[in-house]
Each structure stands twice: as structure tokens, then as C-alpha cells.
């Protein structure tokens, strides 16, 4: 079974976001593999291990720095990595991104596609699902449990919804978007880290994928950011110190009688 995993590189979640010249300042950002994509990588590795055969290919789209995210996935055990160069691409437009990913998927070949349910940068939660539509595949999003049967080309998934999990049955090939809880991602082994050094990461351009650059350029973007802002700082409020026998009734009085929020 050929499993494709799409991985995005995003700022670490401990990053404090600042603006510079009206845009998000990424100059001092620590870039990491998107946390939700880590669950996708882990699940791909587990499926391959369980089947005892197959290939896990990790694909990342973006500037040269995304090679680090690919190497990270390779160090965990992915078999191959591909860097899709995003020069001139509207990287903040999920439709443009999914268009390129769909072309990359066709070139790479696949039986199953896994990716995170959202990138923790722009939080669109779109590319994986649009990708499924563009490839005319079924998808299951926000998945917390997955079983695939290679022989019958059928799968079962649980997806997290309000108040519980939906049980979904689907046919392969399909796109699955991973939610936290799907698995516990492994750490890279020393052997894995050493093995990365020997791997060649091919670069694919839009031309290699047969994508017309104009169709996915900033000027063609289906949606674009026109302005960024930071939330107004919250004012520190009333902090009570002392014996809980005094502070607790006072807090309840404030919330119930004064602020009337409870």
C-alpha cells in the first residue's frame, strides 16, 4: 500500500505572534512540522508496519526550509520525501495549495492520503478536504481512530464531532485528516536520524506537476489576507489573596452579584 502524507511546516505553538510592516513577523520563528501532521505521519507508519509492506511518502510544499519537516518525517521512518517548491504560489490560499497537492499526489501515486486536520498557522482546516474533492476521492476529517483493510479496499474511521464520535465507513483510496488522539507519535531514533543523511529529497516544481503557475498565483487566489491585527491586550483584573474562607465567598459574590455572569 502506497501511503502519501502531506506535511506542512508551521511556527511552533509556543511562538508569540508579532506583526511587522502589517504582516506576521516570521523572522524569529522556530519552524516545526505541523502538530496534526505528526499524527498523520505516525498513523501512516503504523498502517505500513501492521501490513508488513508498503511505502510511506512524505510531501511538503513551500520554500526550502520545509525540507527540515520532510527530514523530520524521514527520521521517524518515512521511506521517501518530496519537496514541492512553492515559488510564486499563493501559499495562504487553500484552494491553490490543494490544487498543487492534488497534482503532486497524482505524480507520486497513492492508495491512501493522510494529513493533519488543520495547519496551526492560518487554521483554515481546508486543504485536505479540498484535495479529496479535486482528486474525486472520499474523505473523512478530524479522525481519532482509523482501520484500513488493504485487501478489500475498505476503511473504518471515527471522527470527532460535538458530543461524541461519528463512525464512518469508506472505500479506498481516500483522504483522511488527523485529529489529536488518533495515536501517540513516536520519537526519532538515532538510526532514523542517521538514515536521513543518505536520503535524497527530490524537488518538484509546478512545471514538473503540470500546474499552470498563473492559476495558483497570488493574483488568482480565491481568498487572500488583506490585513492582520493582534487581539487587544486584556487588562489584569481583580486578584484575591488570603484565606480561601474569605476569598472564595468574595469571588462568588463578585461573579454572582456584581458582574452577574453566573
Amino acid at each position: 500500500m502506497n501511503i502519501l502524507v502531506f506535511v506542512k511546516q508551521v511556527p511552533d505553538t509556543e511562538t508569540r505572534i508579532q506583526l511587522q510592516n502589517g504582516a506576521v513577523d516570521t523572522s524569529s520563528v522556530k519552524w516545526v512540522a505541523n502538530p496534526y501532521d505528526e499524527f498523520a505521519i505516525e498513523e501512516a507508519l503504523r498502517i505500513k508496519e501492521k501490513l508488513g509492506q508498503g511505502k510511506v511518502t512524505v510531501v511538503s510544499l513551500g520554500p526550502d526550509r520545509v525540507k527540515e519537516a520532510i527530514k523530520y518525517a524521514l527520521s521517524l521512518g518515512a521511506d521517501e520525501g518530496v519537496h514541492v517548491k512553492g515559488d510564486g504560489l499563493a501559499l495562504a490560499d487553500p484552494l491553490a495549495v490543494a490544487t498543487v497537492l492534488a497534482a503532486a499526489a497524482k505524480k507520486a501515486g497513492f492508495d491512501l492520503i493522510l494529513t493533519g486536520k488543520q495547519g496551526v498557522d492560518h487554521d483554515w482546516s481546508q486543504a485536505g478536504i479540498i484535495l479529496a474533492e479535486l482528486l474525486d476521492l472520499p474523505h473523512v476529517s478530524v479522525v481519532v481512530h482509523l482501520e484500513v483493510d488493504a485487501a478489500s479496499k475498505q476503511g473504518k474511521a471515527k471522527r470527532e464531532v460535538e458530543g461524541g464520535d461519528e463512525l464512518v465507513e469508506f472505500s479506498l483510496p481516500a483522504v483522511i485528516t488527523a485529529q489529536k488522539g488518533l495515536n501517540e507519535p513516536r520519537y526519532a531514533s538515532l538510526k532514523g536520524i542517521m538514515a536521513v543523511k543518505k536520503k535524497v529529497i527530490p524537488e518538484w516544481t509546478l512545471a514538473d506537476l503540470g500546474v499552470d503557475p498563473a492559476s495558483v498565483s497570488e493574483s488568482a487566489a480565491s481568498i487572500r489576507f488583506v490585513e492582520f491585527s493582534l487581539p487587544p491586550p486584556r487588562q489584569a483584573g481583580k486578584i484575591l489573596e488570603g484565606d480561601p474562607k474569605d476569598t472564595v465567598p468574595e469571588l462568588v459574590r463578585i461573579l454572582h452579584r456584581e458582574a452577574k455572569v453566573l
Partner: protein
Amino acid sequence: MATFGVVAELKDGTARKITVEMLAEARRLADASGGDVAVVALGPLAAGEAERLASHGADRILHVEGDSLAGYSTEAYAAGVQAAVERSKPDTLFFGATSQGKDLAPRVSGRLRVGLASDCTAFELKDGELTARRPIFAGKAFGRVAWNPARPRLATIRPNTFTPLEPNTGRKAAVESIPMPAVKVRARVVGFEKSEGEMLDLTEANIIVSGGRAMQGPENFEILRKLCAVLGATLGASRAAVDAGWIDHSHQVGQTGKVVNPTVYFAIGISGAIQHLAGMSSSRTIVAINKDKDAPIFKIASYGIVGDLYQVVPLLTEEFRKALKE
């Protein structure tokens, strides 16, 4: 005339709260621009539901009916939305930023090749140009987004953002029936597993009580569950507590968990890591309880108690029990 469409989210034929919240904003935008409001309803509608949707702001109901819409499947619903769009050519189409809307809207975006703004919290109409405001980095920043000229413009709207209109029973809506096209469904929902308890989902909750690293273990969350029961609150947790395995990830609030905006958020034994603050700092009132008076959480708390949660929380539960009984 510009049409603002709302894809209704129905449960047993009845519109969920997010639907009337979206209708309020669609109505406002339509009135500001001389447009109208159309509801796209997929599958059976309960008796009187069309009238109720009208009373909440709808001018038209585009009712797509067919056997394949009996339960939710992305592929059938996407085809249903497409049929409604082809019939009424809306300029804008809203979906709830709910499990269903967030699953469906991108599929429609890919199918119609039109832009989708997710998780919007505000819209602005200026000289006929619509822009939307949406949190990014889980709320550490906001972006204002604009669509290209392709129509409809798609958006998902975050629950608890817009206030439903007072129902006006004098308002009537025409119901147009739209046949459902044949569709191939390759992923279907075959069951549902309810999560523990009767609590509202974090994203829909008005009151949230969250515990962090200081809970020390799964057994101590019982203290918070008691407070939740008294307040009718939903239980949340920090990443530290979830990663330690004390509580299921579906309770996690923060950048790799839920982004929440309740009326009151209790942060108990949570120091206030940046990724946690991102997920809850838009809560209207934040109450922090922490032993460490220098914990970052106190810098954003509306109210707080410096103290040991194992003393404070049981007392708090008792005091609220008394206060709310009165």
C-alpha cells in the same frame, strides 16, 4: 439583488442554534446592501420549521430533498448544496464552523472552485466589497480576508459569535423545492458514540471549567466535575493534563485543542502557556485559580484567587451551590 445564503444545520429536521445565529448576520448584511436571505435546507424539515426560519430572517427557503440526504454524508450534502447554488446563484454562502460545516464547506469550495473563509467572527461590507475577520494562530492574531470575484463567496461562521434575531412571526418565506441529483457516496456515517457525561461540547459551552498540570492525576478531575455539575459547565483541560494522559484530548483547550469563547472560563491550576492562552483568551470573563501568584494566567484573568486549588475549588463549589439556590 445580492443573495446571502445560509446552509442550515439540521438535527432531526430542526435548525440548530448556529443556523439562526448565521441568519442574524446574513439578515444584517442583506438589509445593508438591499439583498435577500436564502436558507439552504438539506433533507427533511420538521413541521413549522420553515416558518421558524422565516421568523429568524429568511426570505426564501431552498429545500433540497432526496433519500440520500436522510443522514449526513459529505458527498451527498455537497451535491445538495451545489444543486441549490446552481438554482439560486447566491453571492455569499454561510456554513456553521461546526463539525458538519467544517467538513462540508471545503468540499463545496473544491467543487465550485470558490474561496472559503473559515471560522469567521465578523463581516464588513464596504462599497459592496465583503471582508471577513477570522482568528489565526488559534487567536494569537486576526486576519481580514477578501474573496476574488468568483461567486459564491463561502464562509464558515464560528458558533456563539452572532446573536439570533428576536423571532418575527410576521415574516414569511417562500419555500422552493429542489430535486436532489443522483450521487455516489463512498464515505458514510454508520453510527455515533456519545462521549461521557451530559456536558455541552466545549465549542458550544457558556461556562467552562478547565484543569491543568496542578491536577496531578486523573482522579483529581473529580473535584472539577463537581464544580461543573453545580455550574452546568463543560470540563476542559490544558495540554499538560491531556499529554499526561489524565483526561481525553477532546477536553483540550488551546492551539492543538479547542478554541473556545464561553461567557465564563475557569482556569484551575493552569499556569497559562502561550498555546493555552491562544485557545481561551477571547472568553468574556476569565477566572484563574492558582497557587503561584506570578503565574502568567493572572495577567489576563478578569478575577482570580491565589491559593491551593484543593482547598479553593471544593469551597467554591459549595458557595456556588448556595448562591445559585437562592
